[in-house]
């Protein structure tokens, strides 16, 4: 099994991580479980958000009957907004876990771009994916290339989506809502909220692209 396999590898190689205080590594299995759980919830939320988000962007085929007898778009938007809340709360918990969990929990938030050995490992991974070498690099947590992708395509994009999502939500909730108070500054960057919609929509495709590579890489490793 993929999970067991990963846990096994994690246990074996936990000591090999560079420059992390050892007292924070509280055992890979315990540290890993919340991340798995988050991963499940997060993946489900993203799936729901992507599908409903795409439909919200394009609109549904016309429903027959009276407007009073239908609430399709309302339900789709409800699904989108509630999945957005699930994702956001999950993401907050994930950040919390990155702070208290082990070193790997931190990986998707912390990329030591300034370290030479980091780039050496990235180079190694590129060679590996280009079939130029077969030796795997580090086997615990994400490899360096994956870490880069995680940080720039996932962590950044999700943060962006959460912020713009709540800003757009604040428009509907009204200018006196907490969403607008907290996230209304987005409209100082993009004064016309149509642009925020556009960027939010592009974010969807970044996530889709990321998911493709992510799932492929995971299956391939297995």
């Amino acid at each position, binding site marked *: 099994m993929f999970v067991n396999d990963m846990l096994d590898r994690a246990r074996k190689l936990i000591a090999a991580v560079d420059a992390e205080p050892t007292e924070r590594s509280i055992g890979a299995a315990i540290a890993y479980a919340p991340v798995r759980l988050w991963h499940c919830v997060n993946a489900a939320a993203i799936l729901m958000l992507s599908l409903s988000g795409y439909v919200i962007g394009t609109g549904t085929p016309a429903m027959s009957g009276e407007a009073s007898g239908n609430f399709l778009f309302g339900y789709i938007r409800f699904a989108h907004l509630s999945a957005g809340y699930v994702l956001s709360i999950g993401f907050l918990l994930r950040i919390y876990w990155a702070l208290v969990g082990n070193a790997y929990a931190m990986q998707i938030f912390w990329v030591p771009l300034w370290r030479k050995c980091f780039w050496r490992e990235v180079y190694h991974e590129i060679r590996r994916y280009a079939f130029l070498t077969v030796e795997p690099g580090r086997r615990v947590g994400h490899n360096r290339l994956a870490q880069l992708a995680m940080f720039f395509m996932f962590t950044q994009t999700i943060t962006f989506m959460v912020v713009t999502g709540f800003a757009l939500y604040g428009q509907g909730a009204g200018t006196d809502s907490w969403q607008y108070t907290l996230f209304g500054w987005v409209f100082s960057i993009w004064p016309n909220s149509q642009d925020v*919609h556009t960027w939010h929509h592009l974010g969807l495709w970044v996530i889709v692209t990321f998911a493709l590579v992510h799932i492929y890489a995971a299956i391939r490793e297995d």
Partner: protein
Amino acid sequence: MGGPTETFYSVIRRQGMTRRSFHKFCTLTAASLGLSPLAASSIANALETKPRVPVIWLHGLECTCCSESFIRSAHPLIKDALLSMISLDYDDTIMAAAGHQAEAILEETRAKYKGRYVLAVEGNPPLNEGGMFCIDGGKPFVEKLRCMAEEAMAIIAWGTCASWGCVHAAKPNPTGAASIDKVITNKPIIKVPGCPPIAEVMSGLVTFITTFGKLPELDRRGRPSMFYSERIHDKCYRRSHFDAGQFVEEWDDKYARKGYCLYKMGCKGPTTYNACSAIRWNGGVSFPIQSGHGCFGCSEDGFWDNGSFYDRLTTIKQFGIEENADQIGMAAAGVVGLTVAAHAAVTAVKRLTHKSDRAAPKGKLS
């Protein structure tokens, strides 16, 4: 020009308006501002006692649609009243004086009502070539604007031109047309965007300032909250069709005739802050969506550069050819998908050849 002690009430009585009509006007205004019925009497009181606020109305690069809208303020009484209620000391479009006589009024107001007059600006100043693209009274408009803004109590930026820039600031903006707040930074600016703004919004705002002697509450972007705190979408009478998922698919289809939501036709109602769906136009007769055409967001910043009025997604020009987010996203996802497929194929081939080389030891890895 009227003396400083002349009130709005004395002016309209002199013009033959009855006291009854005057109170009707106050009640209507209170209602349109969303105030309580009791506020009508305080409006009446203010208009009877407070000296009229001198207003200087300048025109920069614009089409005069704000003025056109303003003079059509719904109720005939409002139209008549507003032209006398504020002491419109200068408005080159509708004033009788011309030439040096007109320009002298500017100087006079500036000196006489220092810090007490309201500067209403319709249109905006072009900044390129030292402002030479808009000459007004023999000198660049931007200079006139700066000069009059110096001593003003507040500035009203009428319309999308003055508020955001509007069509003459569209890319590549050869004249360098810029919104008022790019030029005047040390005075309160009330932005009343719209192309044009709704007549009752304009007259309502002026009434508020004269009545209460202060500026209304403004939102984050400098617009009066009482008119710009909700989107067209929030109060649209077709909103129930939006929630139901009933959309017009083509301009002449049966759904269009049934009055379904225009979301798919690129209606910008969900991204536009204005009061059209609440106050409507021409005395509450209609507004674009009611007439069957989507909102195109004329009161929003940058609406002129956001691609077709009939698309939901903004055109993204940075990609060379005009594409929208969906096309770009699908292309990217497609390319990556193909790459992944190709990579998977190569992996499989590699693994097969590998296996046949040394089958036993490497096999258990997967």
